C-alpha cells in the first residue's frame, strides 16, 4: 500500500465534487438506465420486507435480468476494516484511472480512497442508499458521472454488500494524450 496525494507533481491539482441528488430526481435524470433499474429493484425489495433487502433475495437470478447483472458493481463490506473491502466487477468508465477493482488496500488514489471509504461506511452503517453526482478533475483528466449505491444484508441481518450502478455523463478528457 502506497498512498500519496493523487495530485503530487506539477500542475496536477485535484478537484472533485460529490453532490447528493434527492431521490425524486432519479426518475427524471436517469430513466431507462441501469441506475433506474437498480433503484426500482432495490425499492421494491425494500418495501416488501420494510428493511434493507437480503442479498439472497436481491441477487437471485430471476430477480434481475441477466444483462443487468453484468452492469452492476458491488463492494464487499463484510470485513470491519475498510482496507479489506473489495470492489468487484469494477466498471471501466474511462481511462481515468488504472484501478480495476479489488481490495481497497490496492487502490492507488488517496483522494478516492478517502471519499469512497467514508461513503461506503455511511451506507453500511445507516442502511441508506446514496445517489451522487460526482465530477473529478485531476490534472488534465476529467470525468463526470452519477452513481447509485444500495446496501443489501446477509442472513444475519448485517449489511455485507453495497451494489452500485454508474452512468458516465461526460466523455473523459485527457489533454495530455492529445
Amino acid at each position, binding site marked *: 500500500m502506497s*498512498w500519496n496525494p493523487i495530485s503530487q507533481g506539477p500542475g496536477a491539482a485535484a478537484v472533485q465534487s460529490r453532490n447528493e441528488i434527492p431521490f425524486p430526481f432519479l426518475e427524471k435524470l436517469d430513466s431507462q438506465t441501469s441506475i433506474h433499474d437498480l433503484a426500482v429493484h432495490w425499492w421494491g425489495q425494500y418495501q416488501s420486507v420494510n428493511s434493507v433487502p437480503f442479498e439472497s433475495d436481491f441477487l437471485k437470478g430471476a430477480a434481475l435480468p441477466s444483462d443487468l447483472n453484468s452492469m452492476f458493481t458491488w463492494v464487499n463490506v463484510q470485513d470491519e476494516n*475498510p482496507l479489506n473491502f473489495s470492489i468487484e466487477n469494477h466498471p471501466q468508465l474511462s481511462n481515468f484511472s488504472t484501478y480495476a477493482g479489488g481490495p481497497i488496500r490496492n487502490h492507488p488514489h488517496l483522494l478516492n480512497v478517502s471519499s469512497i471509504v*467514508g461513503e461506503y461506511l455511511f451506507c453500511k452503517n445507516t442502511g441508506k442508499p446514496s445517489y451522487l453526482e460526482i465530477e473529478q478533475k485531476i490534472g488534465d483528466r476529467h470525468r463526470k458521472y452519477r452513481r447509485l449505491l444500495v446496501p443489501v444484508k446477509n442472513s444475519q441481518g448485517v449489511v455485507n454488500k453495497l451494489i452500485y450502478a454508474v452512468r458516465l455523463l461526460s466523455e473523459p478528457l485527457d489533454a495530455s494524450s492529445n
Partner: protein
Amino acid sequence: MTLLLTDYRPVEVVRGTQGVDMQVRSAYTLDAFHGLEFGTDLQVMFDYWREKSGAGPLPQGENFNPNRDLPEHVAGRMSWIDASAADPMNFSVFNHIPSPVTQYGVALSGKRLNQIMSLGIHITACAGEYFVCQHSKLPFYHEIEQVVGGIQRHYTRLMLPVLDSDGQVTKIYYSCRPKRETRKVSIGQAGSS
C-alpha cells in the same frame, strides 16, 4: 523591496452537498502548512510531533504527551481520535474543544462516529480522512468550510498520527484553528458574511 507572495493552493479539493448541508474540504501540502500556519498553535503542535518522532517517521505514544510538554493553550485545544477499532465508524473522539454551539462542542467527547451520524457529510468525510491518516501514517492539513445541521464552521485542521507499542496508528491527534466564528445560520444565509 521585493514582496514575495507565495500562492498556497490546495492539492485536493472535495466539495459535497447533502440536502441543505454543504462543505468544501481542501487538503494542502506540508509546505503550504508551514507557510499558512507560521507562528500559530498548529505549527507548535507540528513541531512537537516532529521532535517526538526523532529519527523515525512517527512518534511513539508513550513519548507523545502534549499535556505534559506543551503550553496549556496549545495542549488544551488538541483533541484525539481513538483509532484502535477496525471499523472507523467505531473510532471515538476525545477532548473535543468547546463550541459556541453546545451540541458541537464537548458533548462530542467520548462519542463514536456511528453515534453522531446525524452530522451526515461531515462524519462521512471524517471517517474517510481518519482512515487514510491511520493507514498512510502521514500528517494531513485541511481547510474545512461547511454548513452542517444549520451550523456554519470555517477552520483549518492538522491531523497527526501516533504509533502504539505494536507500531500501529491507534491515535490521531488533531487541532483546529477557526477562520471565522462558528454560528447558527438559516437557509439562504450561509453564503453571507
